[in-house]
């Protein structure tokens, strides 16, 4: 008996799960530590932050589902033979959304259209060739052209209702769980009046909107391309949803490089001073003085040469694209640790002069222990704030780098690649706008949520603002 699929773990997948483990450990540690619980509770009390967390959570869920990769098993020609697996790498997200990628069209089609966007030659039964707008493949089994809008309206309404029903069930479960069974009624009543201590109603509304959206899309997807199709006929909604993983990975994996470098070097420079400080300052001034885009471009060009000359190392296109994505995160991390390191150095310089450090030293506590127990916890808020604030910048940087030609692999699904492909189509008459709009809307939503959350987090954690 063989598995119906062969699991594939790409490098970025593995690192993403490492990151999630680290985050879980951090959450656990934070939850036990009252000093950190308090600012987080302040974040949780802000309705804005709750909405942002909801949106980010939805994006993260898609990214995680899209990071569980596998190769499907090929249908067996002769029973009893060892199973053969396909070369195409799919993810759990693909398996959950077959409607979005099964049917591929000829070329462009507008959102919710029934016909292709461009005329194609078609041979009539009498041998005459005419140019017509062919009917979309996906619309083959659905309502006849005249009843299209009625069909769309019906599907939208039923989808919304189904989404709302599932959402209500989930919110009910959540409320039931939070209310700890017995006090559920009283808790629900309090929550409905906005007295639960945190914005339950806001969270419920956010979730409701998301469930309705998912419901509507699920109802429309079998018969329509909700956001149209691109030049080669791929569903734009699918493309932009797949891009979420790339955007999130660039925003988060980069911190895996940034944080160790910035924290170790920044604190070491501030704490030890002397030649250590000089050396570290020299390194980051050099790195900082090279314009970031140029340094990234130089490194990525070199990586490209490396990939070209070591073709045999990468067995699939996915592995190749994955290496390039990983390398991009690495080099983005190398260019962005300097700012945080400088901040940490300054803060450590201040802390080093405080009495409690002197006391610790007088008691004979070693350097390592002082750094770990007395310095690191007191600069941790800077690390957190700057990580959250950098995230959105990194997501935006991906699009720009892809435009310059040093971003992710052209085969990777990413907003930068989508924008790049769609940019020239604006010159077309009539205009193909849906690809650009889809990429910008999904990207801006993510960045906006991250920026707003960063604001709340900074407000809550920055001691100068009367937070923690």
């Amino acid at each position, binding site marked *: 008996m063989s598995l119906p699929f062969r699991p594939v773990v790409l490098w970025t997948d593995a690192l993403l799960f490492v990151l999630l483990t680290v985050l879980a450990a951090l959450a656990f540690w934070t939850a036990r530590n009252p000093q950190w619980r308090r600012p987080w509770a302040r974040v949780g009390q802000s309705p804005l932050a709750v909405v942002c967390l909801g949106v980010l959570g939805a994006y993260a869920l898609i990214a995680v589902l899209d990071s569980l990769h596998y190769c499907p098993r090929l249908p067996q020609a002769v029973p009893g033979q060892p199973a053969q697996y396909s070369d195409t790498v799919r993810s759990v997200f693909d398996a959950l959304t077959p409607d979005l990628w099964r049917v591929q069209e000829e070329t462009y089609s507008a959102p919710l259209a029934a016909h292709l966007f461009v005329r194609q030659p078609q041979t009539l039964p009498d041998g005459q060739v005419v140019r017509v707008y062919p009917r979309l493949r996906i619309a083959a089994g659905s309502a006849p052209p005249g009843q299209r809008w009625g069909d769309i309206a019906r599907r939208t309404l039923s989808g919304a209702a189904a989404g709302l029903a599932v959402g209500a069930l989930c919110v009910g479960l959540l409320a039931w769980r939070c209310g700890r069974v017995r006090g559920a009624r009283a808790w629900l009543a309090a929550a409905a009046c906005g007295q639960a201590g945190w914005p339950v109603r806001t969270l419920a509304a956010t979730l409701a909107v998301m469930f309705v959206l998912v419901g509507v899309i699920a109802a429309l997807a079998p018969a329509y391309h909700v956001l149209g199709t691109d030049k080669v006929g791929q569903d734009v909604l699918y493309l932009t949803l797949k891009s979420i993983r790339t955007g999130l990975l660039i925003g988060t994996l980069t911190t895996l490089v940034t944080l160790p470098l910035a924290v170790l070097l920044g604190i070491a420079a501030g704490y030890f001073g002397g030649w250590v400080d000089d050396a570290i300052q*020299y*390194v980051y*001034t*050099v*790195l*900082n*003085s*090279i*314009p970031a*885009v*140029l*340094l990234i*471009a*130089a*490194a990525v*060009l*070199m990586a*490209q*040469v*490396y990939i*070209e*000359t070591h073709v045999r190392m990468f067995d699939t296109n996915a592995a190749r694209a994955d290496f390039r994505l990983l390398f991009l995160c690495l080099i983005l991390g190398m260019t962005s640790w300097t700012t945080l390191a400088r901040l940490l150095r300054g803060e450590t310089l201040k802390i080093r002069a405080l009495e409690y450090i002197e006391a610790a030293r007088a008691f004979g506590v070693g350097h390592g222990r002082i750094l770990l127990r007395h310095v690191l916890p007191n600069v941790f808020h800077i690390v957190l704030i700057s990580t959250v604030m950098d995230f*959105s910048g990194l997501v*935006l940087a991906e*699009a*720009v780098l892809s*435009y*310059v*030609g*040093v971003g992710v692999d052209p085969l990777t699904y990413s*907003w930068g690649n989508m*924008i790049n492909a769609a*940019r020239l189509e*604006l*010159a077309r008459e009539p*205009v193909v706008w849906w690809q*650009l709009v889809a990429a*910008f809307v999904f*990207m*801006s939503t993510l*960045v*906006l949520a991250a*920026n*707003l959350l960063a*604001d709340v987090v900074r407000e809550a954690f920055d001691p100068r603002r009367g937070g923690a």
Partner: protein
Amino acid sequence: MMRYLVKRLLYAVPILLGVNLLTFALFFVVNTPDDMARLQLGTKRVTPEAIARWKAEHGYDEPLFYNPKAAGVDKITDTLFARKSAAMFVFDFGRSDDGRDIGREIRTRMWPSLAIAVPVFVIGLAANISFALLMIFFRGTYLDWAGLALCILLMSISGLFYIIAGQFFIAKLWHLLPISGYSGGIHALRFILLPVLVSLAAGLGSGARWYRTLFQEEVGKDYVRTARAKGLSEVRVLFGHVLRNGLIPILTGAVAVLPLLFLGSLLTESFFGIPGLGSYTVDAIRAQDFAVVRAMVFLGSLLYIVGLMLTDISYALADPRVRLG
């Protein structure tokens, strides 16, 4: 002051040397010139002769640091490091892959870059400061809150969007300005207007938000309370006291980016077809012209270091509490 300047200048040398070594390592050691030749010649089956010819044509057929075949001082100077990297210290940038002198190219292309970058810098600074002051004037009200929300919204949208939307609506749909292109003299105005407008819109969100933070810190200080206690009007407090003191960090921060204006903007220039240094860099990256990329890296870091020095000097000039020594 003089002593300080000399010290800073001497301090810049090891940094530039570091930049030089780093780019040299990236371009010549991690990947050998052979790899580069193979990438440029494109095909999988290139002959060793073709590679050798390409290297000889572009002057890459020398050892990295030490040439045992040469005589005397040439042992050091007839090397890739001396020819390609160290030569930049005397502004000898060599030739690009299409055979043009990079130094001359930089000198002619920096003017269109400046034509866009200087107006964006000056008007942008004024616009961002005015917007920030407006928010501070209405601080604590819904107007302030809405302004801040607008800033965060503006900075959450990719810079590509402003450019594409500007080109699409203003140039293509309404035919107000040309989509792209450039010409010298007075006609340049028609071409730089749209890029400048787009860059201003793209920079407003983050700029105004940052200045608002600076002013907000300033507004909370004691001297502002004193000024108010004296009975000064809110407008006089803001313009006479808060703005003047808040300008110190703003201007010194702005001075740091002043030299970098020469480099222009990568995105704006290449989208609008401005023949400046930004589009030069983008074209070089796309064509994988390593000589140009190396030259731009060196130029960029040089200008950055000049900016750092200018910042220190302007601090000393603007703030009497700061003394250089």
